[in-house]
């Protein structure tokens, strides 16, 4: 299948944690994304999703992100994102994901 397999890695930062996302975000990313969220929430502060290593997001991937965002909201955790291409920033605007998570311009948000 075209596209690269989804992977996620979590690191702690001064402001919270960063979940580095790699590959394709579609329905197959659900388990990895939720597992990464569980790892990241150990650390206090905002959980930032780093999309700079993501090559493709489709509607099933949007659903996965919405699912994680729903988990975070239920647990009153802040979630942000950076590293999105202009196209996916627009997709986040259109889907109104951007209304519920901070979209940062660059990686400095995660430092």
């Amino acid at each position, binding site marked *: 299948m075209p596209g690269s397999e989804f992977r996620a890695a979590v690191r702690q930062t001064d402001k919270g944690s960063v979940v580095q996302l790699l590959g394709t975000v579609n329905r197959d990313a659900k388990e990895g994304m939720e597992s990464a969220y569980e790892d990241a929430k150990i650390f206090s502060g905002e959980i930032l999703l780093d999309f700079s290593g993501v090559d493709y997001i489709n*509607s099933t991937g949007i*659903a996965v992100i*919405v*699912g994680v965002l*729903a988990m975070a909201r239920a647990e009153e955790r802040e979630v942000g994102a950076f590293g999105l*291409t202009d*196209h996916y920033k627009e*997709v986040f605007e259109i*889907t109104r994901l951007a209304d519920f998570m901070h979209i940062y311009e660059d990686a400095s948000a995660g430092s």
Partner: protein
Amino acid sequence: MVQLTRRSKKSDETAEAGIAPSVSPTRALDPVEIPPGDTLETLLLSVGGPVEVSSIEVDSPTISRLKEEGIELVVPLIGQGELLGALYLGQRLSDQPYSTDDRRLLGNLASQVAPAMKVAQLVREQQAEAKERERIEQELQVAALIQQTLLPKELPSIPGWNVDAFYRPARAVGGDFYDFINLGGDRLGVVIGDVTDKGVPAALVMATCRSMLRAVALRHDSPSAVLAEVNENLVPEIPPAMFVTCLYAIIDTNAGKVVFANAGHNLPYVRTSDGVLELRATGMPLGLMPGMPYEERTYSMQNGDLMVLTSDGITEAHNPKGEMYGFSRLMGRVAKKTKAEDVCGFLVSDLEGWTGPGSEQEDDITLVVVRRTSSAAGSAEAFHQGGQGESVLTSFTLASVEGNERVAIDRVAEVVGTFGLDSARFEKLKTAVGETVMNAIEHGNDNDPSLDVGVEVVADERRVAVRVSDLGGDKVIPETTTPDIEAKLAGEQTPRGWGLFLIEQMVDEVNRTRINGSNVVELVMNREGES
């Protein structure tokens, strides 16, 4: 004079081993056989040792013959309670009668010889059986060679159609065959047949029948006329008690029309969106009687229809309980829409599950599967009839396999990239194409890899359009609604349901229509919309 008479194991075969001149014979003696059940046999088995012929009071043709020949003493050779042979001794050279010592000596000799004869007999029988097995094996190899040489080397490759076949001979090679005949134009001849009997005779009749069918098929447009002429030609040629069942169909690959006639073969099944149909047409097997008529019927295959032709090696296979696989089970399996593209593989695997592991295949197994995959690309092309000045940038089909939406994106991007949409709108079109193709794969074609998704990219001075078609039959694409993200985040709704919304948001225009059982979605980007 001594004669050794050897008897074979089988009671109806009495053989003579010739003269064993351990004592110089004064004259040769023609073999004197002891027929099964002869009084002498009973007597010798009863006595178990040398018997003086002159003292035998009962009579039988053999005993009379021995007396005529001047045989004085008969020494039975007995092994495991069976009379293996006998030594016939004439008068002693000294003219003296046989003494008690002579008889004892001969009795001992016989008891030594009999086991050796038994072993020799078994060895001879085993050698004969091995030779027979080798002969049968060679015959089977010849039969298999004839069949495999004559079966098609490759499958027809026809746009919008998928043809597959499976053939596996039984050990005793039956007379199954199938064939594809290119009739020119958009016409394909499809044959499946089965010769009664097995081995070389069946293979030779199969070869003859196949050649006749090929020759006659090129002269007639009508399957019933073809079968009738082949029958006339075959009747004088075919050995007695042999015949051939055969189904012959001519498929118009452009219109999807199938005209067929059947000479007593298994009925073909067609899986449609409404269920499985039997294609019935009556006719006697080929080679039985001259002057036979063959009914001719027609069926129109729709996009996605699947026709399965089989031999009785499938329906008449038995499970360990002795139950036949049968037509109803086959029909049920044909109805089953599998995720696998390999219908032949699915049916064979189901059959193997039925017969059980390690069971020997009873008869040849032959399957031909013809599927009208699509005019999916054709439907997309038909969407926009009035496209004055419209150029087709590309047109292709993809199997309904998850991930092929990325292939579609790449192939559309290749041609649209050269057409000059700005990068933001180009990315939007790519996302819309990916979502639309994914919907066609998942929802339209139910992830059935054998069903194609058609993609066509056209452009004119005003716009670029991508048309995506599935084979969803009666499925209706739902209306697009705006997802309620608050409800989704609150867990009140599923997080899914973004596809149609994204598509609508990504392009300038989305048009939907249904053509020939296909849902066609047209994604339009206006060129004046370029920034």
